[in-house]
């Protein structure tokens, strides 16, 4: 009896999550008409770590939309549990809707090791979406310095490809402190995959990864990049 009820609840939750994801992605398409391009790379069923610039809560949704549906299901965003477990709604969105890999960014309070949590998700067959800036970029700089997590993860799972992903224009759709989005076209560009070289140190690798990501930025005359 109680298991049936638990199953029903689980089913209801999954249905709600599916409906929520549908509405959110439809809305994101309506506002951004997002378009994905692959430069020197192709969609692949292999496990991958996508690393992207982070300017908005919508970043992950745009990447998700432009990935082929069969890859979507096994691609999980890495997000801060310190934010996504704060309220029941956020927990529902983070866990049920987007199946996020939640890590605690706060060194003092955290119990689990973020790298171990990500390794575990990868070992279970997931591809990850990682925002190596660590937080949303609300500055005028195109890209903040990278945290070392990307390096440690890549070092420990050297067979996994690292794919840079540039998300363009979403920061203009929803600037800091605004709550109504302005419809503007956004694009998501996937670049050639990288791997950590044998003797490569953290700084050298993170520099290389950051340049690879910056290189995907579209250039435009006249308007701010």
């Amino acid at each position: 009896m109680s298991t049936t009820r638990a199953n029903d609840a689980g089913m209801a939750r999954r249905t709600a999550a599916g409906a929520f994801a549908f509405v959110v992605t439809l809305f994101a398409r309506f506002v951004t008409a997002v378009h994905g391009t692959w430069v020197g790379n192709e969609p692949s069923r292999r496990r991958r770590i996508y690393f992207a610039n982070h300017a908005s809560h919508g970043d992950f949704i745009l990447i998700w939309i432009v990935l082929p549906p069969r890859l979507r299901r096994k691609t999980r965003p890495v997000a801060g549990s310190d934010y996504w477990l704060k309220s029941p709604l956020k927990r529902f969105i983070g866990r049920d809707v987007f199946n996020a890999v939640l890590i605690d960014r706060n060194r003092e309070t955290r119990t689990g090791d973020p790298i171990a949590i990500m390794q575990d998700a990868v070992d279970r067959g997931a591809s990850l979406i990682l925002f190596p800036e660590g937080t949303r970029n609300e500055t005028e700089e195109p890209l903040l310095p990278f945290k070392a997590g990307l390096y440690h993860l890549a070092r420990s799972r050297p067979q996994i490809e690292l794919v840079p992903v540039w998300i363009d224009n979403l920061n203009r759709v929803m600037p800091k402190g605004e709550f109504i989005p302005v419809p503007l076209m956004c694009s998501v560009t996937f670049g050639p995959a990288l791997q950590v070289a044998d003797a490569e140190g953290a700084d050298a690798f993170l520099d290389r990864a950051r340049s690879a990501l910056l290189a995907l930025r579209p250039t435009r005359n006249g308007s701010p990049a």
Partner: protein
Amino acid sequence: MTIHPDLLQLLVGVGAILVVASAVGYVLQRRFSPDGANQAIENLNDRIRAWWVMATLLAIAFIGGRTGVILLFGFCSFAALREFLTLTNVRRADHWSLVTAFFVVLPYQYYLIWIDWYGLYAIFIPVYVFLLLPIVSALRGEAENYLVRIAELQWALMIAVFCASHVPALLNLKIPGYEGRNVLLIAFLIVVVQLSDVLQYVWGKLIGKRKIAPRLSPSKTVEGFAGGILSATAVGAGLWWMTPFTVWQAGLLAFLIAILGFFGGLVMSAIKRDRGVKDWGHVIAGHGGFIDRLDSVVFSAPIFFHVVRYWWTGS
């Protein structure tokens, strides 16, 4: 919701042309590009497929009557405005102006057309919005590039909303003896403008030599221009039966529409060139964005509207 026999005849005609085009595209692909390697043929087939979608949407809108046409062009305006503003200098300080443009100005302009308040929809954007939005942007106190920003926003609204909304506004014209058939005026405008674009492309590919505006739009040629405009004029004259015009009037108006359409394409190419992009977007396969397909309609619609209103409605 009855379909006028003239509309039915036109839809059947357009359907027949598309069937022929698809057949030609299929044969070309089988013979010259079986592995999808020939760019020109692949692009041609993309375009034909997109034409099917566009013709179907228009047909549904026409059959849906006033509501259908207003909704369709309202959405086109939305998509065009989204594409246009993406390429401008608007920034954080303009956020509320942009929100107003998308979620207030655009729906209100189409609402005014819906309720047929000519006195307001003819001046709402050029007068009221023209004065209002700079105020909204100024309130944020950001002076950098101010004139450029407000000018771009106003231009975007004029092109994507004001001009485009004159296509459904054709439904409001009261032409004696033409009651209940206004949707055919829209069909006339769109068929002539779009055929003119296609025919310019075809003539240019066949005999085009001298470039007409090499710095703005390298693919446009004098031969394509002349051949396209003249054949579109002939097609327009041949469509007189669905209009309130005589044969020569229909030809003259088709000529006017085609010329304006050509220059609309040229102007929008100049803007794309300025901004360093090839297409306005990527939504319509083979065509680019909405503006790439609408540029000529947008330029011809308001002039067509006013010419017909002045000479044919007696107001």
